[in-house]
Structure formats: structure tokens, C-alpha cells
């Protein structure tokens, strides 16, 4: 018998009120939570614990290789097969009648979310190794820039217009912050699905489509970097009061420094059981410091991952496989959390979803047209269609969750509905298009067959 753990018995009254979001509220708190009682009863705690274990176990099963094989076989990617059920599960778990993921439990789970955001950022940053950067030719980079810029701008305009109409007046800063957050989340293209070709290790020059997908990830990260640096949270827990540009450089410097420290740390450990623990500790440390300074854990860990990926060390493959192995369960946990944060009754979220879809399609279409006129890289017709309708990525969901941790405001809660909804809609659209093209026996069918063969092998 050891001393009992009492974390879940923390008096609810001592927790800051989190009615819709996970971020601390600005003083004075605008909403007083109607929590009803001070402590969870024993049956409630047991229900929550068992429910959380079941949900997390499902998240790990959702990342099982058999599920992934099924996804490939059915030619659909994560959002619909594994993702959508988790969003629904998260929503159901948050219902008062179920009570497994109420706001107070989410509040207790925030450290896990900080760690998970850091992990996602680290994974994305680690993908930007020298070979990827070198494989992006100038025309592809230009095309990627156009796609990112026009998508970002069109979402900014569409959603900005909506925010002007519906957002409570909290000043221009809040308006721009929310608009850039939505645009950042909407700019990211999923790195799996029918719109991207199968990637082979050591298979020569990478497909240009990969370059464009990577650049869109970079656009999302930059958007988040700017928002976290220039639109500081309004709660007064931080002692340093600095201009936005200073925070920008602090973010870059912190990420770089942590990247160097993680590098030195990993170099001092031989491959073996300790390696994973060191990696977990490094990401936790980096994400925690970022969160402590109210910066984005995704961005800081992205920079650290990027630095690490481009330094010479012999355990690179081990780091990559370890990072990727946990990426998907973390993504599914994000979807669970997002599902529990969904406020389906708020029409503004659904409007953001529609505008996100419209903005991405319009922005990408305009970008391809500009590319064609300026004679930079233009993909084939099929590739173009698939890329135009490409679903939002896991990083988009992570951006939405990160926004929940950093900021307070109604738009932040609408963002979840918008991003999740847009992910599903774009996923369905791209699947629909791919299957329509399959009838003609086009190259999509070949890609799908190729993926299936790769998975089978």
C-alpha cells in the first residue's frame, strides 16, 4: 500500500473555470462555471478513470497497423476511419449524461495535451531534414509559396469577414489573432491520403507534391509562431512583458537552444531502453518550457525537431521511428479532446467550416492558375485536383487544440468545430474525387494500388 493519489480529487472549486476552452481566463473571469458540486464522488471518479482508460486504449487500437491497413485498403485516410469515430466518441464522452470528459477533466488533462502538442511539433520538425529541403526545387518552392499564400489569404478574407459580423467586439488585436489562427489551421495539408504519392526511402528525388505539402506545414507553423509571439495571452502569469518581436526571437532562440540540448542529450545515450525515455523527457521539457512562457509548444518543438533533424547523429532512424510510432495515437487523442470541445449548437463554427473549405479550394485554385501563368511548377491535372481538395492535416487539429490552451474567447471554441468539420468535408471531397477518377483507371488508381502493395509488403 502506498500513499493514495489524489489528483482527481482536487476540489473543483480550486480549479480555474474552463467553460469552453482550456486556457486560463483573463482576469476578471467573464464566466463563472456552474459546476454544482465541489468534489467528484467515488463512483464518478471511477467512471471517469475507466472511461479515460477505454478511450485511450481505443486511441491506441485506432493506431494499430491493422486499422491503418484497412484504411489503405479502403483508400481513405485517418480522418474518416479512425478520426471521425474519435471525434464522435469525444463528443459523447463530454455529454453531461456520460460525464467522462467534462470540462474539469479536460482541465486536469492539460499537461498531457502540452506534451502531445510538443510531440506533434517535434515530429513535423523532424521531417524537415536536409534531404527534404534539398529536394524542393525552386519552381516547386514558388508553387508552394503561392499555394500557401493564396490559401492563407483567402481563408483570412472569408473568415475575417465572418468574424467582423459575428465576433463580439474585443478590439482589432483579437480579431487579427483569431483570423490568423483560422488561416494557419486551414493552410495545412494532410501528409497522408490520395493527394500524396507513396514515398520511398532512398528512392531518388522526392516527388514535388511532397515539397508542396511540407511547405504548407511550414506555413501553418509560421502562422502559429506569429500569433503566439505577437498576440500574447491576456492572463498575467508571466513576469516578462516584452514586445512581440522579442517574443518571436525568444521562440526561435528557445527552439534552437533546446534542439541543441536534445541533440547533446541523445548523443549521450546509447540506443536501448533509455533512449525512448530521453526522447520523451526532451519533448516534455521543451513543450513545458514553451507552455510556461505562453509560447506555442508546437512551434518550439518544431524548431527543436528541425535542428535535430539537420545535425549529424547515428540514431536518426531510431528517433524517427519512435516519434512516428506515437504520432497517430496522439493525433487520435487530440480528436477525442476536440470532440469533447465541440459546441455543435453554435452555428458560427459551422460557418467557419464552410468558409474554411471554400477558402482552401478557392485559394489553391487561384494559386494553380497563377503558377500556370507564371510558368512555375504546375502539377498534372489529376494531381492538381487532388491537391486542391486535399484534406486538412493532423497539424490543423493540433493548431486548434494549441489555440484552446493559449487563448480565451468564443472564436477559439468555434475554431474546433470549423477545423474538424473542414477536415472531414475535405476528406470526403478528395475521396469522392479520387474514386470518380478511379473509374477511368487514372493514375490515382495506380497510386492507391501502389500504397496497398507497399502496406502489404
Amino acid at each position, binding site marked *: 500500500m*502506498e500513499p493514495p493519489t489524489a489528483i482527481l480529487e482536487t476540489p473543483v472549486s480550486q480549479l480555474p473555470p474552463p467553460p469552453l476552452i482550456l486556457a486560463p481566463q483573463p482576469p476578471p473571469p467573464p464566466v463563472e462555471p456552474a459546476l454544482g458540486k465541489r468534489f467528484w464522488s467515488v463512483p464518478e*471518479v471511477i467512471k471517469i478513470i475507466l472511461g479515460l482508460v477505454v478511450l485511450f486504449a481505443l486511441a491506441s487500437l485506432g493506431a494499430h497497423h491493422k486499422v491503418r491497413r484497412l484504411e489503405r485498403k479502403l483508400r481513405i485516410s485517418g480522418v474518416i476511419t479512425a478520426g471521425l469515430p474519435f471525434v464522435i466518441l469525444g463528443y459523447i464522452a463530454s455529454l453531461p449524461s456520460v460525464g467522462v470528459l467534462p470540462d474539469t477533466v479536460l482541465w486536469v488533462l492539460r499537461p498531457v495535451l502540452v506534451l502531445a502538442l510538443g510531440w506533434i511539433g517535434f515530429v513535423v520538425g523532424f521531417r524537415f531534414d536536409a534531404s527534404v529541403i534539398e529536394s524542393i526545387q525552386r519552381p516547386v518552392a514558388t508553387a508552394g509559396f503561392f499555394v500557401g499564400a493564396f490559401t492563407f489569404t483567402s481563408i483570412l478574407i472569408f473568415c475575417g469577414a465572418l468574424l467582423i459580423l459575428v465576433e463580439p467586439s474585443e478590439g482589432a488585436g483579437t480579431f487579427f489573432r483569431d483570423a490568423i489562427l483560422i488561416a494557419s489551421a486551414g493552410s495545412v495539408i494532410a501528409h497522408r491520403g490520395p493527394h500524396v504519392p507513396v514515398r520511398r526511402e532512398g528512392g531518388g528525388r522526392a516527388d514535388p507534391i511532397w515539397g508542396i505539402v511540407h511547405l504548407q506545414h511550414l506555413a501553418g507553423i509560421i502562422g502559429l509562431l506569429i500569433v503566439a509571439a505577437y498576440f500574447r495571452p491576456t492572463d498575467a502569469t508571466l*513576469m516578462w512583458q516584452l514586445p512581440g518581436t522579442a517574443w518571436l526571437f525568444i521562440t526561435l532562440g528557445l527552439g534552437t537552444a533546446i534542439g541543441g540540448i536534445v541533440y547533446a542529450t541523445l548523443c549521450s545515450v546509447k540506443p536501448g531502453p533509455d533512449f*525512448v525515455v530521453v526522447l*520523451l523527457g526532451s519533448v516534455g521539457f521543451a513543450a513545458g518550457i514553451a507552455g510556461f512562457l505562453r509560447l506555442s509548444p508546437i512551434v518550439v518543438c518544431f524548431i527543436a525537431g528541425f535542428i535535430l533533424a539537420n545535425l549529424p547523429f547515428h540514431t536518426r532512424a531510431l528517433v524517427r521511428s519512435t516519434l512516428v510510432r506515437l504520432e497517430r495515437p496522439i493525433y487520435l487523442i487530440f480528436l477525442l479532446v476536440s470532440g469533447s470541445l465541440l459546441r455543435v449548437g453554435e452555428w458560427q463554427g459551422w460557418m467557419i467550416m464552410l468558409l474554411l473549405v471554400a477558402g482552401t479550394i478557392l485559394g489553391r485554385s487561384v494559386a494553380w492558375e497563377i503558377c500556370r501563368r507564371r510558368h512555375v511548377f504546375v502539377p498534372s491535372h489529376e494531381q492538381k485536383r487532388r491537391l486542391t481538395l486535399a484534406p486538412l492535416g493532423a497539424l490543423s487539429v493540433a493548431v486548434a487544440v494549441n489555440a484552446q490552451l493559449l487563448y480565451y474567447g468564443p472564436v477559439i471554441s468555434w475554431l474546433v468545430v470549423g477545423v474538424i468539420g473542414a477536415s472531414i468535408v475535405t476528406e470526403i471531397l478528395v475521396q469522392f474525387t479520387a474514386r470518380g477518377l478511379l473509374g477511368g483507371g487514372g493514375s490515382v488508381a495506380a497510386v492507391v494500388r501502389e500504397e496497398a502493395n507497399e502496406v502489404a509488403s
Partner: protein
Amino acid sequence: MRIFLLIVFAGLMHATRSFAPQAGADGAGAAGTAVAFGYLLLSALFAGSIFKSFGLPRLTGYLVTGILAGPQVMGLVSQPALENLEIFNGMAIALIALTAGAELGVREMKPLLRSIFWIIVVAILGVMAILSVTIYLCRDLLPFFNGLTLIQAIGVATVLGVTMTAQSPAVVIALRSEMQAEGPVSRTVLGVVVLSDLVVILIFAVVSSLTTTLFGNSADALETAGRLAWEILGSVGAGVLAGLLLAGFFKHVKGGAALFVLAVAFVMAEVGQRVAFDPLIIACAAGALVRNFTSYGHKLLEEIEGSSLAVYVVFFAVTGASIHIDALQMVGIPAAIFVLVRGTGFYGLNWVAGTIARAPMSIRKYAGFGLMPQAGLALALALLFSRTFPDLGVTAAALVLGGVAINEMVAPILYRFALVKSGEAGAANPAPAPELEGAPALATESGG
């Protein structure tokens, strides 16, 4: 390089905390927990490897890291973050007890049962008696004895004696795993500490109930018996269920077992304690069932080894950070006396028990060291003591906490020495292990 990295981690941690001095209470609380988790994981792991290079247990490195980083010394890890990280405690205890149960193979333990029985009867019960007498004799050094009648003083001394006898299966199993130890000494110590855990709980319940009546409170014997029956029999029943669940999973599901074991450990720890079961008994029963009634005992051990390092490291670091250094200032001298008496008692009476049981010489010489580590159970009983006797409990609990603090630092080193001298260190895995290997690793199969 490792020392340099430790300094860098500490410097970054200090800088981070200085950026947001108010962060512990609200906004950055979540980040504070995450950064404390990362910091303790990295620092404790590196400190453990440095300690190992000096011939000391890695576990002591984890504990020292926790003590230094904790709120009472450098304050790098805040109290709220520490409380949040206590969620690892229950899970670590359950994993450790699962390991203990899975190691308790009846066939392998049969030749040692005689030794285990006599060590429990002579050494454990004998140390309880010796400690009780010593505490009574030293009552002038302990201010909370002032004003007590003779019979009350005897009662309180007995309850404290029982409390201070408690051992630490967690430390014993972690050290056994770290040292890759295998042989009669480590097996006997394992059996004794697990079973004596039950003995101490039972005797504490009975003695504290009787002592309560000496203070004019009524004690319902039937209620106490019912509570104990619920705790022990209910825990065994829950353990059997958990064991069946684990065996069923191993039989029918390929892959992902590490995460499942972690989930079961979490449920055993968190749900168990909330329905007044003992997570240690639940997990131990589950492990013993899997070991003795199915063919998946080794599989269970492999999965635990493959999934528990991070949990262990954080658990021991948090335990170190929670040590009440201030308690030593209050009751340092008597605590040191009792630690000395306890240790000497365990060593001497273990020798006597071994002689009675005609145990091998290695058990007589070295098993006593394995009885000395002390941690969670003593802390829990101290807490219970302070609740049962609120008038004198705070100072008396400080005495127990002081003893635990000394034992946590010294006893693992002594037990490591015993395992090395008995020749059992490394016997479980004769192959030479790389520098930072030899301990369980975190599971990552969950990703599929």
C-alpha cells in the same frame, strides 16, 4: 558531458521558473507539470547513470535528483507540479506489484518458503517489538509523549513501532530489476517484503484500533475486521479478475500488450484505492495468477520491463522530492536512533531466522539488507496515524517521515551491496549490458 547536461537542465529550469513566478497556481500550471515531468525524467535518468558509474544504485540517483529539485531544496519543481505528477505513483506501485506477483512462482519459491516464514515471524515481528520498546524508552526525546499515561504511551509506541517496521517492495523490486539479480537472497527478500506488507497492514489496523480505545474513543472490532476483510479479500478478488483479464489479452491479442498492461496498472491503482482496496495486493494477486496458472508469466514480465522505465524514474524522483527534509530537523536524532535500531534488528534477527530455518548462508548474511528499504507503506501509515491520533499525530508522523527519509537514502545502497556480495547481481542476465541499459524501457508499441 552528463554532468554538464544536468547543469544545463537545472539552469533552464531555474530560468523558466523565474520567467513566471506565479505560474504554479493557474495558467502555466499544465506547462509547469509538463516541464517538471521532462526535467525530472532527464535529470533523474542522467543522475542515475552517474551514480551507477560510482557503484551506487541508479535508484538512489533518481531519489537524490528529486530531493535536490524538490520544493524543499532548490525549488526547481513546484509543489503543485509535484502533486500532479503523483499520478505516476499509483501506476508505478501497481507495476511494481505486478512484477512481484509475476516473480512469485510457487514452484520456484517452494524451497524458500521455510526461510520466508521464519524471517517474517522472527525478523519482522521481532523488529516491531524492538522498535516499540526503543520508542518507549526514548520517549523523553519525543515531545508528543508528554502528558500520556503509561498505558497510552505503550500503545502509541507500539503503533509507531509497527509503522516504522514497514518495508518497501517498490525499492526491492526496482533494485532487483536494475541489478538483474537472481538467486535465493533476492527471491527470499521479495517474498518476505510482499507478504510482510500484508502482515504490517493487519497488525497496524489491530494495534491502532486498540490504542484508540486507550484515548477514550470507542473502537468497533467488528467494523475493523470487516474493513480489513474487504480490503484484503476484495483486493485478492479484484486481482484475480485483473489477472484473468491480462491472461485473456495475452492469449487473444497480438501486439499492443505493453499499453494494455499500463492501462490495467492505472485502473488497479486509481480505481482500487477509491473502493478501499490495496493496489499492491490487487496487482500482486494478478501477477501471481498469471505466473502460476497460465503460461504468460514471462510475457507479463517482458511487457512490464518494456513499459515501465519512465514511470519508475518519475515515481522515484517524485518520491525523493516529497521527502520531508524539514522533518529531519525536528526529530533528526531520535529518527537516526530508530533507523539504526531497525537496521540492526533486521540484520540480526534475519540471521537468527535463517539459522532456525536452516537457510543457505547467503540468505542469513545478506537478506537482512533487503528488509531495510522503506518508502510508501510507512508514509501511508504515518498519514493514517496522524489522522487517527490528531492530537499527537503531526509530530509523531514527522518522526516516521524522518526515518523514511534516512532509509530511502541509505537502504538501497546497502541492498545493492548485498546483491553484489551475494553474487546474485547480474545473474538474471549474464550477458554484459551496455552502459545505460539493463533497466526497463518505455513502451512505444501503442503507435502500432
